[in-house]
């Protein structure tokens, strides 16, 4: 093994890890969207309302739109398109979910998470799961922006941003 091959191997492993993470997150978001879309939307509106952060019309608006946003993010993560938009958007969404869940758990409200349909109370397990998803999303966001660093182009040509496409 030459001196060059070890960093290459690590870089390839990291790249594969990021792809797995991205596809995993896409699957989770897609599943969450599918579960919500197959049930009557009012059921999810009640889950949103139980957090007591939005007025009734706000809960209804979130219940109507959120599953479609989750589905769109899942498709973008799956295809690798617009990652510098999709990754931060997923991170903001997951950070909001996580903050609301922690708040509700600390207050002892005993409500449903609403993450994957009804019947799942907020517990240390759901917090750990959503915290893990948030961490994964933050790693992917960092990776998406890290790839956009300016790279010097060969001598004699003008310097420009070389942005890799996909992970």
């Amino acid at each position, binding site marked *: 093994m030459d001196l060059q091959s070890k960093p290459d191997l690590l870089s390839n492993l990291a790249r594969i890890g990021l792809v797995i993470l991205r596809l995993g997150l896409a699957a989770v978001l897609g599943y969450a969207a599918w579960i919500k879309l197959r*049930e*009557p939307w*009012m*059921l999810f*509106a*009640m889950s949103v*309302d*139980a957090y007591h952060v939005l007025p*009734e019309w706000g*809960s*209804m608006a979130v219940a109507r739109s959120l599953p479609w946003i989750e589905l769109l993010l899942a498709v973008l993560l799956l295809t690798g398109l617009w990652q510098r938009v999709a990754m931060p958007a997923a991170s903001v969404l997951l950070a909001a979910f996580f903050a609301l869940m922690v708040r509700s758990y600390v207050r002892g*409200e*005993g*409500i*449903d998470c609403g993450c994957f349909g*009804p*019947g799942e*109370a907020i*517990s240390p397990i759901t917090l750990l799961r959503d915290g893990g998803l948030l961490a994964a999303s933050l790693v992917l966001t960092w990776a998406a922006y890290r790839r956009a660093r300016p790279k010097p182009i060969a001598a004699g040509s003008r310097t420009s941003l070389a942005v890799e496409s996909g992970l």
Partner: protein
Amino acid sequence: MRLSAAVLLSLLPALVAAPSVDKGKAFGNPSAPITIELFSDFQCPSCRALHMGLLPALIRDYVVPGKAYLVYKEYPLPGHSHSREAAAYACAAARVGKYEQVADVLFQNQPSWSADGKVFETVAAALTPAEQKKVQLLAKDPGVLSEVDQDVQEGQSERVNATPTMIIVRGAKKYPIAGDLNYNLLRGFLDGLTK
């Protein structure tokens, strides 16, 4: 004869699998399109809020007009020292046709009996002297105590993890809804199911 026996045999698993319903704890039309199973704990403040706030409206709009069949289920939580005793008295009261009245006095006076443990004294206010004697005996009856356990087991099998939890049943579909509910949203959901 053979045919009816075969039909009866084929129905047997469904009859066995059907959840038990204590008629004294069930209200409305049993053949209503929706069944609402309400798992609650007499010592839980959120159950009190639901019982005194949302439930009368739900009964008025859905149970009385025959759109929903309401079935009360006991789900005394382990952290509440008097809730199992209260559930036993309520089940005993159901056997003399006074479940609703006893549930009302238990929820109305929840702060006092939760503090001093005077559950029977609270229950007695909703009963005649003859009913009081009957209920006091029935509350210690193994059949009544096992009824409470059966409700708890049913709740566990339905993955009830908080009180109050409503399980809304429409055909083969079950929708568990936990916690403090917004009645407008619940109404929208129920109306959507009955359309």
